[in-house]
């Protein structure tokens, strides 16, 4: 058994995904196969090749700096799972002193 490419549970935690044991086991096999396939890219010599973040890079696009209408607060909040006093409501974020 070759060394696995990826520690699935560790990376899932980075992505804020809480996986079941079954998911971890399934994804381990599948992602190792995919990453093994991706290794084919190492066959290519890419020294001196610039990276393409976009197919059609456009730089420094500016639009006129003019105020325009935005969504009203009620529309922004309409899909909130929980809200209070015109704000999104979340569990307490700061620890008790």
């Amino acid at each position, binding site marked *: 058994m070759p060394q696995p490419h*990826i520690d*699935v549970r560790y*990376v*899932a935690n*980075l*992505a*804020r*995904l*809480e*996986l079941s044991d079954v*998911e971890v086991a*399934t*994804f381990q096999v*599948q*992602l190792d*196969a*995919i*990453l093994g*396939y*991706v290794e*084919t*890219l*190492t066959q*290519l010599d*890419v020294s001196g*090749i*610039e*990276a*393409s*973040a*976009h*197919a*059609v890079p*456009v730089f420094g*696009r500016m*639009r006129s700096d003019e105020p325009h209408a935005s*969504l009203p607060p009620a*529309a*922004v909040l*309409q*899909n*909130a*799972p*929980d809200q209070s006093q015109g704000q*999104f409501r*979340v*569990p*307490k*974020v700061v620890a008790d002193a």
Partner: protein
Amino acid sequence: MTLSSLRQQLLAGETTPAAILARLAGDIAARDGRTGAYLSYDLATAMAEAASADLSLPLGGIPIAIKDNLNVAGQPCTCGSRFLAENYRSPYDATVIRKLRAAGAIPFGRMNLDEFAMGSSTENSALQTTRNPHDFDRIPGGSSGGSAAAVADHTAIAALGSDTGGSIRQPASHCGVVGLKPSYGRVSRYGLVAFASSLDQVGPLTRSVEDAARILQVIAGADPLDSTCLEAAVPDYLGGLDDGVKGLKLGLPKEYFGAGIDPGVRRQVMAAVDALAAQGAEVVDISLPHTEYAVATYYVLAPAEASSNLSRFDGIRYGHRGASPADILDLYQRSREDGFGAEVKRRIILGTYVLSSGYYDAYYSRAQKVRTLIRRDFEAAFARVDAILSPVAPAPARKLGGIAIDPLHEYLSDIFTLAPNLAGICAISVPCGVTAFDGAAALPVGLQILGPHLGEAMLLRVARAAEARS
């Protein structure tokens, strides 16, 4: 009935927008229970819009079905995901919807898709199975499977989809309709729920090339709300449609006709190539030498971008929130664990991994460099030829089921459609006949035509000539 012929009937007073909608609603009721293309539709709102439709506009009074990852104000936008299925309603119109409305069209119907457009079969929808109208035991393709199936099933006149690695062209091919992926930057992405932002484009699925041109004409063009949407003037896509291919040079990339292609697909695609040659095109062999690296490149870059884009689904501002979270971290994790399906989780983990410290250079940075090589392949090819011809998919539609075990095998079937997204060029799928396959007597085959960046007018002209044969 094509959009173009329906428009003639509307202008001649032979039908009305309300009559068209009523007939569609009847057809959906009669047939979509089996096909499963529609996730929802709102007939009352569409009828109200039909009552005031301005028929003098380019798409006046024409209903257009919308993939359920494009925001239409007041309507659901589930993305085929449990995360957004409960009670999300779009607070605004995507730019393509605003442009459709300005041209008189009526957005009608929310079409099924692979969850967040991740997949090639629509089986990754968490909400519903969509079946291929040509064979109900088979996939419609994906991710715009609902859009393609409805157009093929005549329960929609035309539809919008999105294409990140073939998600318009491959379902169009499997369902026997036309599917156009515009060049990157030709059409605004504002209001399209982002999957991979450097690859995503919105485009039409239609029953004719002319219909695709009519819709592109309306949705193309600059948008101050999308800085990647280009200022380049939008040419007239209809005027030169029938100019033919006489004197054009069309390239056949040898890497797209190698082993692994179903013989029936090869036969029908080559028949379409021969027909274009018979109309006066010069067909030449070309090479796109980095084709074999396209799948690996795509499945690093697209998941990387997806892992970043899908971090917005955190259970705070919209969509699903896990029940009684202990703290904020628990809220994120539970909401995402409940809300996302397997393929979405797989790609988020893959994307997070290739972007993580220690692996970024080996995977992400290297894939971006190979992307440059793939772009250069096309630049060199388009210095020699006007357009490139290939199959859309190596085989016709497979049977439903079987994706779960081997996602890599599923990814490899995208080989012919991924590279155009990586290179940002335009591409179209045009039906080129049917073939017997895997026990089915006659399944549609698609010819893929690739054009240079912003070369949609040329692309549509070649597509029209290919279509004229069938």
